[in-house]
């Protein structure tokens, strides 16, 4: 029976927690991702996610692999990396994307090097890279709830400022909005989002959660509030469907979530193509 099929995985507490985590992280990533897509920051998001690996690695080495403290290491590194990359992109000697590429690959390699000093590194590294949503503890879930809520509240509170700044930075400047502060605040929010999402999809797949649901929504609407809502809807649904796929087909959870989100994108893309003709 279909009902049994749906209910069966939920008898496990780790599946319940994983499901809640995937939905919450999906929603936060999707809303923040709207700005990532509209401002053309996909590469920045990808780079930022990879750049936090050495931070996680150091936390991992110091604590001997305790999962629950890794969030704080990820958060600290992500905020520093976001502001650092933001500052680097303002320098003029090297093109922005080249500078980001150099930093992110270097930091990523440093992270791998650090983790590889531990004998059992392969399993742990793959969790950092690709996520381990079924390993989310109750404590980690609370951190996701609290920090996810903070991100959404700030996005809501500064809605008109972020909208104005993203559409027309010169207007924002002539209106004397605090442009630098708002830009850095947005980078900070993306950083928190990356830290919150670490356990769900991992470093390597993070950019998909930031970009894919928002891009899907962008194809289907031309109003920002609707784009945010649809993006959150697709991301949450991808989390749920992805976890069922992971359970029944025994595939990695992070990959299953991302593949589901990608499928939604492809469907929306084809639907739009057919509709437009």
């Amino acid at each position, binding site marked *: 029976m279909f009902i049994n099929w749906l209910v069966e995985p939920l008898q496990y507490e780790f599946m319940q927690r994983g499901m809640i985590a995937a939905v919450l992280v999906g929603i936060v990533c999707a809303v923040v991702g709207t700005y990532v897509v*509209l401002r053309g920051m996909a590469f920045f998001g990808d780079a930022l996610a990879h750049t936090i690996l050495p931070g996680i690695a150091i936390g991992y080495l110091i604590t001997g692999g305790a999962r629950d403290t890794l969030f704080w290491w990820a958060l600290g590194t992500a905020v520093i990396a976001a502001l650092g990359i933001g500052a680097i992109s303002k320098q003029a000697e090297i093109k922005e994307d080249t500078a980001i590429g150099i930093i992110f690959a270097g930091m990523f390699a440093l992270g791998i090097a650090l983790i590889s000093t531990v004998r059992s590194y392969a399993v742990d590294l793959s969790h950092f890279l690709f996520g381990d949503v079924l390993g989310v503890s109750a404590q980690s879930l609370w951190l996701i709830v609290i920090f996810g809520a903070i991100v959404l509240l700030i996005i809501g509170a500064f809605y*008109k400022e972020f*909208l104005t700044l993203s*559409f027309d930075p010169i*207007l924002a*400047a002539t209106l*004397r909005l605090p442009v630098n502060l708002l830009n850095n605040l947005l980078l900070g929010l993306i950083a928190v989002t990356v830290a919150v999402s670490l356990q769900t999809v991992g470093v390597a797949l993070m950019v998909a959660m930031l970009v894919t649901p928002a891009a899907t929504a962008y194809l289907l609407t*031309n*109003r*920002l509030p609707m784009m945010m809502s649809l993006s959150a809807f697709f991301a949450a649904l991808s989390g749920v469907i992805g976890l069922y796929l992971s359970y029944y087909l025994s595939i990695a959870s992070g990959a299953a979530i991302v593949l589901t989100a990608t499928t939604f994108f492809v469907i929306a893309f084809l639907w739009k193509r057919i509709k437009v003709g």
Partner: protein
Amino acid sequence: MYPHSNHQQDKPILDVRDVSVRYNGRDALESINFHLHVGERIAVVGPNGAGKSTLFKVVSGVLQPNSGEVTISGSKPTVHSCIAYIPQRSQVDWRFPVSVADVVMMGRSAKLGPLNWPKKQDWNFVNHALETVQISNLSKRQISQLSGGQQQRMFIARALAQEAELMLMDEPLTGLDTPAQEGLLDLLDTLREQKVTVMVATHDLEQAAKHFDRIMLLNKKIVAFGDPESVLHSENLLSAYGGRFRTVEGKDGLLAVDDSCCDEGEHDHVH
């Protein structure tokens, strides 16, 4: 929290003194001096790379000059939210998911202040601005669904919602057909009653002569600045455009035809 400044009525709305701007060691503007009075309408004309956009960015306080000083009614531009910069249409992301009314409401962002959402009064401003530019019926459209002329009207409405007193329009006529250009220029004439001071960058010398009080001929320096008859003669034009223009004897007198159109080059430096 966002700054606002009262205007000293006896001061010129805009006073530019000895302003120079350099990009990468190259002069973009050299010792610019002029001032404007409330309600004046000025056309800024000059070849590509003459510094028209740079001048507007300095006047609006978005770009700091390397030397010299800009004052708006007696105080520096960065304390005023009454300066509207209307971008070239090619600089705008028209696929951005916003409606016409959304864009016009952005002009209220400063007056609203942080954490406040639009109130009835702000919607009144937006609706009235849309009526003034005659696109009330398009308020719910996504912005890519507008014609070029309607897009310019939307930005003028945004400037009105901003309660702008100085409007800087970067190439608003470029790419519009003649009826749309005439419509836009007529609209600017009606704004005259609202005491809005307008500076327009344009390539079209004929329209500049017909619709504006004074013409500024710019090529890094001010080549000439005054009423159209005194500015638009071949000696000045040759000095501003060099070999890059041809004069044509038109029905109404002398016309200059710029060989190249659309001011792109100088934008790459300014963000």
